[in-house]
């Protein structure tokens, strides 16, 4: 095996560009998945099947089909319907939507873990339903779900390269472009492979620290 350090040096400027895009996807995608997942979780508690059945079916479908095909769907189908977004926007939305079907499960578990006595105390104090959710239930549920949500952020990191398939130049996209132009595959692919391992390792350390802080 030949290893060429100068190829690494040549690749680094593109690497930083790609890293920036990867982190951008990760942050925005996470925020979408956190928000949308909460919406799904709350809709699943509406006491009518007319809401829970469609929401349950759609999220089940999204969760059980490949993100890659969902990306193709949004990237190629939306323009046919006259809706055009940049590849990055489409990708961020797709990954956020995909992961929202996981975060909804996390929220559900978090909400169900709030003791029933909290609901009873809210009733006894006559708090309106909306206030019960916003002031009592959700603040307690969110605390419980932070670690699990963090795990999904790390999972999402490792799915960001899929956006390369719809022309987004994140880390893997930059690596492939560089490889095709310079005919050097080993160095850029290995650099980003390491980058993923390092970032997800650091992220899991940060998550563990956060979790310890949340314990009390």
């Amino acid at each position: 095996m030949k290893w060429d350090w100068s190829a690494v040096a040549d690749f680094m400027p593109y690497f930083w560009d790609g890293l920036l895009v990867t982190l951008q996807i990760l942050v925005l995608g996470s925020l979408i998945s956190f928000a949308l997942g909460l919406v799904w979780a709350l809709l699943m508690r509406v006491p009518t099947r007319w809401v829970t059945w469609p929401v349950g079916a759609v999220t089940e479908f999204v969760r059980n089909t490949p993100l890659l095909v969902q990306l193709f769907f949004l990237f190629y189908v939306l323009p046919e319907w006259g809706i055009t977004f940049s590849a990055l926007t489409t990708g961020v939305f797709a990954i956020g939507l995909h992961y929202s079907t996981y975060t909804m499960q996390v929220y559900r578990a978090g909400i169900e873990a709030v003791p029933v006595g909290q609901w009873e105390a809210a009733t006894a104090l006559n708090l309106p339903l909306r206030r019960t959710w916003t002031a009592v239930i959700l603040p307690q549920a969110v605390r419980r779900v932070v670690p699990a949500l963090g795990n999904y952020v790390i999972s999402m990191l490792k799915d960001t390269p899929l956006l390369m398939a719809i022309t987004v130049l994140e880390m893997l996209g930059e690596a492939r472009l560089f490889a095709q132009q310079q005919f050097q595959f080993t160095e850029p692919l290995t650099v980003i492979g390491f980058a993923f391992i390092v970032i997800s390792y650091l992220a899991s350390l940060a998550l563990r620290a956060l979790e310890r802080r949340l314990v009390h």
Partner: protein
Amino acid sequence: MSTDTHAPFEKDPGSPRGTGELIRLEKVTKRFGDHTVLDNLDFSVDTGKHVTLIGPSGSGKTTILRLLMTLLKPDEGTITVDGDRLFPASEKQVREVRKKIGMVFQQFNLFPNMTVLRNITEAPVTVLGMSKDAAEERARELLEMVGLSEHIDKHPAQLSGGQQQRVAIARALAMRPQVLLLDEVTSALDPELVAGVLDVLRDIARSTDITMLCVTHEMNFARDISDQVLMFDSGRIIEAGPPEKIFSEPEHDRTREFLSAVL
């Protein structure tokens, strides 16, 4: 208990205790599956009275409190509070009637995400529309009454069980309810913490005209504060009377058995 003008509750000389009926349950039946917890129950409580429900566990005492707090719905019957229907009634009506009722739970059920102060002010501000300042002023008075002024900014997890329960009492009183429901409020406490909570409740019983409905296994406490004691068995009231009578010369065999077991 202080009698100055800032006291959280004052007896209104114009309305002496025991004028008229405040709570009425008529033909109330409650089942859980096949098990009938309350069987065609009739009973009423007069304004300002302190009524204690005693009886073996599973006899339906707590169910009555939970029905009154609308945590449960009866299967049959009607429930009236202060002349207003609580069941059957519209959701809007229920919300209005519920303002007259406060409850203290066995497990305290304080909101762990809020400070002691906010636990007490949350409902007065959002439900009664009190100003934040007025609600906090009142919360301070109540905390002084239950002896926890220095813990005002702590979170519930930083307090002992007994302290948490006293905050829960203050939280219930902050809504100025006409009725206070006490559901085995000392059962979850370590033995050495029980007295502090009961002292606070004795104070409230003595110095306010709030109506109290109390489920407890503390018979001495029941004897001290009650105007009336109801003995429950299998979803029915089998004996009722003033505490002196129930505790000293019970008529019913089941009451005698129960008292000899707990006293």
